[in-house]
């Protein structure tokens, strides 16, 4: 299939590479031309603009930072859009923003799927991302072969925006999960108990989670390299809290967690992995690492 791909950052680049590996014909565009090089080396065609990347494509995928970027690149792509084009945004943005952008594209005759992902850089490279999609069944079906190259657990959640709702829910669970593991470790340490042994004991019971297993190990190793940068998690939790505010939805746990991530960004931990919330807890309780 002919696919245009916009945005070749930490996530976008390996995702695009997996589309090439899957045998798709790929045209790529990135704001910084040097980001395109690895893809051109692997056989993709370079585009001069988003419109150029959309020209002749059946599918147009964007993977950028935030809602204004999505709106901007999709708008810029429209002049190149052929009838029947399906636009797929895989960035994490607010559900309301996704619905708005979807509406704008629909008015121009382009079908839209919001399909944010979970699984991080590791999942993007391995092609094992979780993909949660919102949009019409027809548009989802058209994007499915591309999704299959990038991810494993691919779920059509509902109409436009539903993918982003699922992603926001994912960020609630992972945000609180990381904080929960960090608090458990801080609790163990302040009680003079070895956190590694506690983790080992917990892995066999109902407190088992992927986060306890993976993030928990990295906390023990004090390996704070991202992974998933805490400023991005903060951004995602802000989407959650904004949406809760608009809907009249009481989310006390998410609210407390969002403030911890807010504090991380404010105290210079924004570029570290979200597990650095452990450092913040240690600082607050006067614990040395």
């Amino acid at each position, binding site marked *: 299939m002919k696919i245009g791909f916009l945005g070749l950052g930490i996530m976008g680049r390996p995702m695009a590479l997996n589309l090439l590996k899957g045998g798709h014909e790929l045209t790529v565009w990135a704001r910084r031309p040097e980001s395109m090089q690895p893809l051109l080396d692997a056989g993709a065609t370079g585009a001069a603009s988003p419109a150029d990347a959309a020209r002749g494509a059946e599918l147009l995928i964007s993977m950028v930072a935030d809602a204004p970027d999505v709106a901007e690149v999709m708008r810029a792509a429209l002049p190149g859009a052929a009838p029947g084009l399906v636009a797929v945004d895989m960035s994490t943005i607010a559900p309301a923003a996704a619905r708005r952008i979807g509406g704008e594209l629909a008015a121009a005759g382009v079908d839209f799927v919001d399909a944010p992902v979970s699984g991080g850089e590791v999942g993007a490279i391995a092609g094992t991302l979780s993909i949660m999609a919102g949009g019409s069944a027809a548009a989802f079906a058209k994007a499915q072969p591309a999704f299959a190259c990038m991810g494993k657990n691919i779920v059509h959640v509902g109409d436009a925006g539903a993918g982003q709702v699922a992603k926001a829910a994912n960020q609630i669970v992972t945000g609180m999960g990381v904080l929960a593991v960090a608090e458990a470790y801080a609790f163990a340490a302040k009680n003079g108990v070895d956190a590694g042994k506690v983790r080992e004991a917990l892995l066999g019971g109902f407190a088992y989670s992927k986060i306890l297993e993976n993030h928990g190990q990295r906390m023990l190793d004090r390996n704070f390299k991202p992974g998933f940068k805490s400023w991005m998690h*903060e951004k995602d939790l*802000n989407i959650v*809290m*904004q949406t*809760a*505010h608009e*809907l*009249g*939805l*009481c*989310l*006390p746990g998410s*609210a*407390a967690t*969002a*403030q*911890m991530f*807010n*504090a991380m*960004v*404010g*105290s210079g931990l*924004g570029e570290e992995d979200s597990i650095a919330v452990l450092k913040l807890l240690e600082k607050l309780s006067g614990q040395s690492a």
Partner: protein
Amino acid sequence: MKVGFIGLGVMGRPMALHLHAAGHELHVWARRPQSAEGLPATVCATPAELGRACAVVFTVITSSADVEAVALGPDGLIEGMAPGSVLVDCSTIAPDVARRIAGRLAEKGIDMLDAPVSGGAQGAIAATLAIMAGGDAAVLERVRPLLDCLGQRIVHVGPNGAGQVAKACNQMIMVAAIQAAAEAMRLAAASGVDCGKVRQALAGGSAASRVLDVMGERMVRRDFAAGIEARLHHKDYGLVLQAARESGVPLPLTAVVGQQLNALMAQGWGQDDTASLLRVLELT
């Protein structure tokens, strides 16, 4: 002096009347013309027309977007106000929006103060509002005689936006205090103790506060008719938490109180008094 007034709601209407009573010639514009009915004022067709007629214009409007539209939008104040005239915005809006509006007006030589108020409808009627002003000190001195008609405590906090920052701090403390009062009332009631007596006992000690006095009494009487509509506090909490995020400053208590306000909105109590935070606690 010819004074313009936009935003003739619960707060704006009595404020406009005070300016008229002090001998100023009132010009008004209202999105819904019926809001201006019965006011001793010249009704203008657009904010621009009002701006052309007046040396000082007051605005008391609910949202950042509405203030921006009235000031800078098509037929907005910016199209009519003369260089050297002053916009006094008494709305509660985001500090960065206040700064942006001031910046755009300054390009045309129009001065602006962000001058949000505290004291509620009662304070507006009694002309006892606290006014927290951001902007040039000299501009504040020019309009001070007008502000004196509206309030008793007028503080120059700092440059443009500083008034809104002070107001955000005011809202944080006030609503957190309402939540604290509600929790105290709830605990007292659940322990089989008379809420009114507890409030009375506390009023003499270290926990005494204006909120416990006014809102606490409403809670005891279970009178949830708005003084201040809770939806406005809910809106303000959105602004505060957004500002906290932009500064990377954690506000853990504010964040939790914000969720109680979200629950209040979900119950459909947005137009009732914020004392309804007590009713949120009673849901569980």
